[in-house]
């Protein structure tokens, strides 16, 4: 029997809290027991709550905590398909010395959460989004357990990829992994301006991975990092966890950001450096508690997709909007997409995606609200996994498949509730 207890939940950004009743699931059969005893039960499934948004909140309602479902079920070394419970993380897969084909910004995200947001990585032109590698999953709805794949319950498959957890509870996932081992060799460069940087990123064919750390104040100090899979050698750096003490206050100020940018710019450009995939793709995971540097109010992130033809123009407009709001951008990352996601509400389409962290305060909120409006105006898109400000109307503008998605939810008599579902008018 699942016991629910009142908790105050947050997410990775720590910028919001939600009072929920949380039931912890230890075995997948307990989800069936819960749903059988609560035929209209609409508990929100939650992995580790590592998104920045409210998809993992159900204020004053029930949450199913699936973070204990961390078991691997099957592995086929011929097809490189792995089956696992939905709470298994990318880190768990890396610990088997295997490579997830697409990895999000943190290795601690769960497979269920990765499906719910159709996460992307630094290798979209070569590998697409996470949803492209999902072979099948078991989805528990209020009256059934369905085996869902591209060929079985296909409509539900494409609704659940990027479906924000609203179609049901994902219990088990079968995923195709990358056959190459999780090691890369990286090269870094510092193109002279945004135009050169973006042009370099468009010439992506030679690289398995690429991303840019942007310096929004001084474009020539931005850094492009490109990487290719390589065989493991003795030179490969294994990522070491640096346990920073949690910060009691916000450390992100103009003065500290100037010092950080200066130090980062002084850091030597790495060429032919060997790294583990985790150390390359998820450097911040090695800094425990880095998100506490934004203080107790947490951080906010703006992540949008812009058309590639006019990307330099958009980057300068973004800087202008941030400056006008007097907000302080912290870390900024630019990635390039060519392959659209295969979910009805997938964020990823061809173009450039820009992600910017801000400390959580009024100026940042104003900047992000204005950036959202700007993005919609230029026919861009906002990433729901990072956003908490989009209105229902704005969401409908960026996600043309919203009606089709809502129609599928209506076929499920009791779709899952969540704060995000309510905010965007999906339930």
């Amino acid at each position, binding site marked *: 029997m699942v016991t*629910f207890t009142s908790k105050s939940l947050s997410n990775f950004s720590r910028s919001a809290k939600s009072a929920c009743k949380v039931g*912890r699931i*230890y*075995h*997948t059969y307990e989800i069936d027991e819960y749903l059988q005893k609560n035929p209209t039960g609409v508990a929100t499934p939650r992995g580790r709550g590592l998104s920045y948004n409210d998809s993992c909140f159900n204020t004053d309602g029930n949450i199913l905590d699936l973070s204990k479902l961390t*078991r691997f*079920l*099957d592995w086929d070394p011929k097809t490189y398909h792995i089956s696992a*419970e939905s709470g298994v993380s990318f880190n768990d897969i890396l610990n088997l010395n295997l490579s997830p084909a697409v990895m999000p910004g943190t290795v601690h995200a769960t497979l269920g959460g990765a499906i719910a947001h159709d996460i992307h990585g630094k290798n979209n032109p070569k590998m697409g989004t996470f949803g492209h590698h999902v072979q099948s999953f078991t989805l528990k709805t209020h009256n059934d357990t369905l085996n869902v794949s591209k060929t079985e319950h296909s409509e539900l498959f494409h609704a659940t990829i990027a479906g924000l957890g609203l179609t049901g509870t994902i219990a088990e996932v079968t995923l195709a992994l990358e056959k190459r081992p999780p090691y890369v060799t990286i090269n870094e460069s510092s193109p002279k301006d945004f135009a050169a940087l973006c042009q370099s990123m468009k010439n992506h064919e030679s690289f398995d991975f690429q991303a840019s750390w942007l310096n929004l104040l001084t474009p020539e100090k931005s850094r492009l990092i490109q990487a290719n899979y390589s065989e493991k050698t003795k030179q490969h750096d294994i990522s070491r966890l640096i346990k920073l003490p949690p910060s009691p206050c916000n450390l992100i100020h103009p003065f500290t950001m100037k010092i950080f940018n200066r130090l980062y710019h002084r850091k030597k450009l790495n060429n032919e450096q060997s790294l583990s995939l985790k150390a390359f793709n998820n450097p911040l995971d090695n800094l425990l508690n880095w998100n506490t540097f934004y203080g107790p109010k947490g951080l906010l992130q703006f992540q949008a997709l812009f058309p590639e033809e006019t990307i330099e123009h958009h980057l300068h407009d973004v800087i202008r909007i941030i400056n006008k709001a007097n907000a302080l951008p912290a870390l900024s990352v630019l990635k390039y997409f060519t392959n659209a996601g295969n979910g009805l509400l997938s964020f990823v389409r061809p173009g450039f995606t820009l992600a910017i962290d801000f400390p959580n305060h009024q100026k940042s909120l104003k900047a992000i609200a204005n950036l959202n409006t700007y993005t919609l105006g230029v026919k861009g898109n906002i990433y729901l996994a990072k956003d908490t400000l989009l209105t229902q109307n704005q969401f409908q503008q960026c996600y043309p498949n919203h009606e089709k998605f809502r129609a599928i939810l209506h076929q499920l008599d009791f779709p899952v509730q969540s704060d995000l579902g309510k905010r965007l008018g999906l339930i």
Partner: protein
Amino acid sequence: MTTTWIITGATSSIAEAFAHKVAELGDSVILVGRKEAPLKPIASNITLRYGVNADIQLMDFSEKNSSLNALLETSNNLSLFIAHCEQVTNTELNEKNIESAITTNITKTIQLIHAYLQKPQNNHNIIFVSSVAGLRGRKKNSFYGATKRAVDTYLEGLQHENIQGRTITIARLGLIDTKTTYGTVTFPLLASSQKTATSLLEAHKKGKRMVIIPRFWKIIMSIIVCLPFGIYKRLSI
């Protein structure tokens, strides 16, 4: 030298965490429980993560006639981790569950330990997951505590025999963060199952015969055990 751990109550959080700890060191495991469905993912997970054998044996310790032979019929060097138990509060007691809990927690447990010790092998290793509830009768669960204390005392007698090559660890657990305590216990310092399993294995490797986990429960229980009954009966614990 590797061993094969028979782990009873294998679907419980602590037992599963212990299975991981020993599998990480290269030991094989035999996971014992009543139903196959929850055991299969635990077994596959251990094999895929650590590359060791993880077999399943179905057993219902509440059944008086359940045979223990299948568990012990292997030529491997076996070790025993006992975590199965029936938990019942005093307010829930009836004729049926009294008999069932005694069969599960005492009769079948001692039969298993006895049969295991007859198995000819150089070393015998037993970890018994007991409870601080056995240290003093508490109004909430004195019957349950008594069933644990019964086995504790039996094992203490085996320890008194002082036989070479035999390591028996009685682990009295305080409040641990498990499925049983989740949402029902408002104690602020619940130890995780993973840390508990690590402590259990460490204590056993050091040859400790008795251990209380988490350690601060030693102080709590020392006080509770020594309290004059006139004061003890007034505590709402």
